[in-house]
């Protein structure tokens, strides 16, 4: 068995699968970083992604264009994120309750709309986005195939990761966005428009979460199925904590989870005689162990999930 695993072709295929499984987590995680850095915990990421998945499918199906699908998916994600913004910024409600409620709401809503859409029809499916090999980079051994022979959305993520890193580390604006998650009162007294920035953060949260869901449909599957995000939104939240609220940390965490999931499903097909239930635990176990290893300074924004009410103290 070990001989089967330790071949270059197995490792290449395995890494490629790890990246595919990690990609929705990375987009969702990146969206969550923007929200949480600004003090808003969006547990509703699962719902944002599910709406992204459904509306990207519906858009692409009715228009016949993947670009329209992507735009619709983003719009779906934004809608959910802004409802969360309405409840947690404007109405200053409990963010965990709002997020969980949105997850249930979107599950019911997307399943219902999908049934309307597919009533009396056969299976509906769309073409998926093709892979584009980056010249040079894709020829690298082992990682070339996994990271640089992918679709446009994957490459876009790499760019967004770098931009996010620069934004928070090198720009004053980024500092202001991070400040409102740490101490909104202090930020406000320094002239930062707290609520306006939080709304912008939620907009980004919706856009990126929408792409996370759209990635599943437009790049990987070409079909929508009920509840197809199946917990990836929650894992995305974990990757943010595990990645210490930094884009590259989150990237690494998502990759670990994707790799663990890719490994367990591949071990099954090789015929490893371990129960699939136990193998299915592998990604979660690795995540928990990794989080245990990440003890130390808490990177969590000080005012995360505490509503900011202007003038109150």
């Amino acid at each position, binding site marked *: 068995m070990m001989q089967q695993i330790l071949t270059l072709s197995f490792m290449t295929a395995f890494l490629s*699968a790890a990246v595919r499984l990690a990609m929705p987590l990375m987009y969702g995680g990146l969206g969550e970083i923007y929200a949480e850095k600004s003090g808003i915990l969006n547990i509703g990421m699962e719902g944002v992604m599910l709406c992204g998945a459904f509306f990207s499918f519906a858009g692409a199906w009715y228009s016949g264009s993947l670009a329209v699908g992507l735009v619709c998916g983003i719009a779906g994600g934004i809608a959910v994120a802004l409802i969360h913004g309405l409840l947690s910024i404007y109405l200053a409600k409990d963010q965990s309750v709002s997020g969980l409620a949105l997850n249930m709401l979107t599950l019911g809503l997307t399943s219902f709309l999908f049934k309307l859409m597919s009533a009396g029809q056969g*299976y509906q499916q769309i073409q998926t986005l093709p892979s584009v090999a980056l010249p040079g980079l894709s020829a690298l051994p082992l990682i070339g195939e996994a990271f640089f022979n992918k679709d446009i959305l994957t490459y876009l993520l790499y760019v967004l990761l770098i931009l996010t890193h620069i934004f928070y580390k090198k720009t004053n604006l980024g500092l202001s966005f991070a400040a409102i998650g740490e101490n909104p009162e202090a930020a406000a007294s320094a002239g930062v428009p707290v609520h306006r920035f939080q709304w912008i953060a939620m907009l980004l949260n919706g856009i990126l979460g929408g792409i996370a869901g759209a990635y599943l449909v437009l790049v990987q599957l070409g079909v929508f199925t009920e509840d197809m995000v199946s917990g990836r939104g929650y894992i995305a939240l974990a990757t943010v904590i595990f990645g210490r609220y930094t884009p590259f940390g989150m990237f690494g965490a998502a990759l670990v989870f994707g790799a663990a999931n890719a490994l367990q499903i591949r071990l099954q097909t090789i015929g490893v005689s371990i129960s699939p239930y136990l193998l299915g635990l592998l990604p979660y176990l690795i995540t928990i162990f990794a989080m245990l290893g990440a003890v130390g300074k808490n990177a969590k924004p000080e005012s995360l999930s505490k509503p900011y009410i202007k003038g109150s103290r």
Partner: protein
Amino acid sequence: MKKRWMSVMMTAAMILSAAAFSTVAQADDEPLKVALCLSGAANDQGWNQTAYEGCAAACEKYGLELSYSENLEAADIASAFADYASSDYDVIIGHGYEFGDPALEVAEQYPDVIFICTEADAAADNVASYVMACEQTGYVEGVIAAMMTESGKVGGIGPIQGDSLVKIINAFEDGAKSVDPDIEVKTAWTNSFVDTQLAQEAARAMIDDGVDVIKHCANACGNGAMAAAVEAGIWCEGDSYDQSSLAPDNILDSALYNLDVVLDIALGKVVDGSFEGEVVNLGMDSGAVEVLMSDNLPDDVKEAAQELIDQIISGEVEVVRDYTIRS
């Protein structure tokens, strides 16, 4: 004030959108009264809708009166059964494995009420279970897969290792090995009915390993396995419905489970008085399960498969029902 109103309205909207537990009853006490209990929505375009429609058709045929309950959680089943039993219903149907134990429990207190469960293993004086012999279709699909593979490797993907799914994958393996004892049958379980991407990755892992025919019984998430097969240009075999439109050029066949036939037989037995408290296995001979072959199959394979189907129907070939988890 304005803010409070908004939050009240949002809460109301969310509550309304949650799936509601509903009961529809009709008043008329002449014919036998049948109650159907479902674990999901009666219009779910799948497991529950086929049962509802099958039940409605059977009731129409036998002149019975039908009521139904939707979206029952496991914890609510016993009380829903007891509600119906105490309101003078004559036949109570629970659709799914999870209804078996509550039926046994409630049936003891209502000896005059007949309980029927699908896909369960419950049997008592007034409780019968009707199980579809999905192992028969799985076996035939295994034979077809083995005849179509060129690499000598085939794969089976399932969702969760429940009895009714394990028996399909096991029979698929048995069928494939009956054609070629040396064939490699790879299996994977997604541990989820909904994780479509993981089913796709399971199929891709098999394809990377040389598998060129994939059978799935993974409900909706099996669509991911079909997508991977289409992408790689290999053969695949569908489940539950005619899935040919998902993979028109790659599909070999679909296993069909005809719940309408099952419910027709079950209610027919009640009406003509031949009801017995037993576990009934309904196979290809009754039309409860069948293999729908596609035109992608070459004639010789089609003929061989049809011959096997005929033998299973006549009882000449008996497919083993094996619930043990193999690895």
